[in-house]
């Protein structure tokens, strides 16, 4: 059985007729890096929130390991295992001192003080914010705040972290900091689910799922998914710039053996073509 599996999830908010999720099934293996793509309102954020029991599907079941998210007695066990990092770092920090904020999660879990200390130090070092531990959050940059928010989740020692558009409110520097942190976490063996609408972030993942209208549109390795340029365009989704350039060159009669996903690959392709 997969680490997380969602079976035919349907979801609609109480006050609306519209179904946000329309029968989504997906499996997430332990240790993988999955990117969930889609434009605004496609249901990707809602999907993310069903993975740690923040939202319960109206139909279908989400399993985390062998725990059903509908089982109320397991809620904290599920949330401890599947952390969720949200978009706005400002609204995720609880305390006025960084190390105390990171301690918030383990404190809620009732962990003994000495171990909390250990976890806090370890988490802050993992996101490279250890030297800021006694600072106040409001003096940090957006990227630094988001890294503290990640440390706050990390201190619960989750096996999976779901990132719900973690870079949407950050400047380019902050984005890079957060993406590097995510990469480092993946190397530690933590399962990553990254929800984003930046195509070049999705390229970093092992597997990409594209959602549209509450359904899964495409699924596969980044290169497979982004090779479907016409389909993605039809659903008003972007592809990475490098891929788009290659696609246009293909349209002009150029032979492209391997779709480039990033600038380096694109440069190599052009060198090859131009001889």
């Amino acid at each position, binding site marked *: 059985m997969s680490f997380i599996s969602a079976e035919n999830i349907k979801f609609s908010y109480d006050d609306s007729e519209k179904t946000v999720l329309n029968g989504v099934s997906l499996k997430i293996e332990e240790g993988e890096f999955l990117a969930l793509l889609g434009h605004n309102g496609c249901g990707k954020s809602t999907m993310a929130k069903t993975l*740690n029991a*923040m939202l319960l599907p109206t139909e279908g079941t989400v399993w985390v390991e062998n725990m059903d998210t509908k089982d109320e007695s397991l809620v*904290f066990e599920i*949330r*401890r295992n599947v*952390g*969720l990092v*949200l978009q*706005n770092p*400002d*609204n*995720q*920090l*609880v*305390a*006025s*001192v960084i*190390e*105390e904020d990171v*301690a*918030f*999660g*383990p*404190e*809620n*879990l*009732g*962990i*003994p*003080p000495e171990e*909390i*200390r250990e976890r*806090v130090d370890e988490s802050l070092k993992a996101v490279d914010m250890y030297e800021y531990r006694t600072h*106040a*959050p*409001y003096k940090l940059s957006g990227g630094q705040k988001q890294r503290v*928010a990640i440390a*706050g*989740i990390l201190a*619960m020692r989750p096996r999976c972290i779901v990132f719900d558009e973690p870079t949407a409110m950050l400047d380019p520097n902050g984005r890079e900091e957060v993406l590097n942190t995510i990469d480092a976490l993946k190397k530690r063996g933590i399962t990553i689910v990254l929800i984003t609408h930046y195509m070049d972030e999705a390229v970093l993942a092992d597997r990409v799922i594209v959602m549209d209208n509450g359904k899964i549109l495409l699924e596969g390795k980044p290169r497979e998914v982004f090779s479907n340029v016409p389909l993605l365009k039809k659903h008003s989704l972007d592809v990475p710039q490098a891929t788009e350039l290659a696609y246009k060159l293909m349209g002009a009669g150029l032979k492209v053996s391997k779709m480039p996903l990033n600038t380096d690959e694109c440069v190599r392709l052009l060198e090859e073509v131009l001889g």
Partner: protein
Amino acid sequence: MIRDVALGQYIPGNGIVHRTDPRVKILLLIAFIVFIFCSFSFVSLGIVTAAVAVIILLSDVSLKLYLKSLKVIIVIVLITSLLNLFYGTGDPIFKWGFISVTMAGVYRAIFVSVRIILLILISSCLTFTTSPTDLTDAIERLMKPLKVFHIKVHEIAMMMTIALRFVPTLLEETDKIMSAQKARGADMESGGIIKKIKAMTPVLIPLFVSAFRRAYELAMAMECRCYHGGQGRTRMKTLHMKGSDCVGIIYAAVVLAGIVLGNIFFTAVI
């Protein structure tokens, strides 16, 4: 500029007052407030003034800051002592029309102003030397016995923590909204006070909406981190009583003894 506003004005330091357990500091503050109001003779008042002065000198905070905190209340001190001046009974030492000043009135005025000044100094000393988080922590722990009366101690402390956390965030946001409204031609500087207050509406409404949105998101983030109230919750930083805390308590006891003796052996003037 607006971001530098520090609530409670905590001044980091490493003196003995800073290192004292915040719970002990709060209790000592309460004790000293009682001492200040229970000093009835000049000797007692002198003892408590000296005791406060010693704490202030030990506090590792510049005296300028204490003077600054007094500046705010100087008017209140003047008005209350002036009123008390005419309050006393007995033989007038000065009479002009229906106004008469007695010796008792003079004493009363001195006592009242000294008391207010001491009160401000000693409470400033607490906020100067204790970080807001330590304060809320200490309040939570001190109020723990109130749980018997079904008072939600943990929730109150959590609300204080969150409020303190969001003061700078919301100040910054106010700044931004004001700039945004000014950019659209909003006039916030001219006119009388009523007009100025009215001009704040387009700032306050977005601020409130945003505060609610933040509250909603924060609640979600807290739930993601398994928050479920105070039950079964542990703390990273546990407060322990140290030697310096005992020194504080002994100090308060000595001052108390001095005041009691001062009240018994010297005539009460108030």
